[in-house]
């Protein structure tokens, strides 16, 4: 089975302010976008599970015009706090790579 990193054109993560992490998955073909959307692999429940957050802290947006999916969630620790590992939130996207896409 293919995984998300074989289909998406961009998979990235970044802070949206110091308390929020936002993940973008961008496609270059509408068919790919629709296929991943239909697979229902990026849902608030699944993302909450992957990033160990309560579902209430997770939002998922599907943006067909941008061929994009966005996941915004509360950071497990604020940017720059003592236990933070990634000030810009730039390496937190990796967990999305191996999501299986039927």
């Amino acid at each position: 089975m293919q995984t998300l990193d074989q289909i998406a054109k961009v998979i990235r993560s970044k802070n949206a302010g110091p308390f929020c992490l936002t993940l973008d998955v961008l496609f270059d073909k509408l068919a790919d976008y629709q296929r991943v959307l239909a697979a229902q692999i990026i849902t608030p429940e699944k993302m909450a599970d992957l990033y160990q957050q309560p579902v209430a802290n997770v939002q998922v947006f599907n943006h067909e015009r941008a061929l994009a999916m966005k996941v915004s969630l509360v950071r497990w620790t604020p940017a720059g706090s003592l236990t933070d590992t990634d000030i810009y939130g730039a390496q937190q996207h990796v967990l999305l790579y191996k999501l299986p896409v039927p």
Partner: protein
Amino acid sequence: MKPELKIFAASGQLGYGIPEDAFKRGVAAGPHVIGADLGSIDPGPYCLGSGNMVVGGEALRRDIRMVLEAHKSTGAPLLMGSAGTAGRRSQLDAVLEVVESVAKERGLKFRMAVIASDIPKELIESRMDRVKPCGVVPTLTKEELARATGVVAQMGVEPFQRAIDMGAEVIVAGRSCDTSMFAAIPRMRGYDAGLTMHMAKLIECASSCADPGGRDAAMGVIGDGYFTVESMDPKQRCTPVSVAAHSLYEQSDPFLLDEPGGTIDLRASKYEQVDDRRVRVTGSVWSPTPYHVKMEGARLTGYRFVAMCGIRDPRMIAELETVQTETRKVIERTFKDSIDPKDYSLIFRNYGKNAVLGPVEPDPTLVASHEIFVLIDVVGKTESIAKTVCGVAKQFFLHLRYPGILCTSGNVAHPFSPDVMPAGAVYEFNVYHLLPVDDPCELFPIEIRNVG
């Protein structure tokens, strides 16, 4: 029919070295406004908390020289915001010193507005009942506010507009919304607010909205009912997908972007390819909301010392966490009468295991790698505590015996001398709150200086 207005985004962040070719192309295109961002909250709480600069030296001087000369050659007003990363007064002053020194060196004359963004704590305290958390942040208390080393607020377009009305040709502002420098003039000339703000949001990161994205200068052109965006690097094309995708960059919500005094609503935005390299956008809407500014502040947490440790011995790698647990115990024992464990934090950051993803790492095992890196990270209430704990932690980590040990002369390879290094003061965000204001300019005093 309004004439087109060309807004030139010189750089995504001034002071990191503006790429020259694209910049020159933009200047030659005859912009009506030159805008540049000099800061961000992204580098974390240090700049905000300390008031120190992270950029500077020759890179900042060079970039400022480039934009001042572009202002001179085009006559376009030059708007610079978030001076010195966090926009605190000390950083604003440091940037002004560079601006004035470059002007002197080049014989440039201009009327300059300086807009400060520091918010007195007494003022915040007097409106405490109206302060709201911005997102998932605790409610601001008087005690927490008192701990902040300083508070700034992001100014909207209005203080820039007032400065232009006061005759400013060059504006250097403290903390600013990243849209303000690009949107202030088109909005005061009556261009559609939704389109103007959307354009500003796209070009504030320079050519990031192109494909491939870059850090080259970008041009936004606003007309009657539309705007276009273009990278000034001919190899970078803006496409409907690259522009729509950049609209959601760094935003928690891709369709509704909150700004002071309104929301940029992108739900009906249309993106069309105009020619090979430009995209035309229509349909973005501005929905006014009660005016509030976002405040940012940080407090001092302590002081950091670090030790860098490379490990190649598979036996040590296998017992890594045993050694770390033991090291921690030894430290607590050693200092039981002199240093309270509450006065420091000791973290072993195990690169090769889970130092990047932390608790969400799905595969926290070390076995796959023949070589790993451990960063001993100590933050103490005082520099002396941090240095002491880090030094002792390093020493025990280096020499503790573990089951199966063959090498009894040292467990780790330190790349540097000194092996225990000061990493400065440590801050954490403690103000990230919205403050309602009646007048968008009231918190941002404007000073006019005649330079040259």
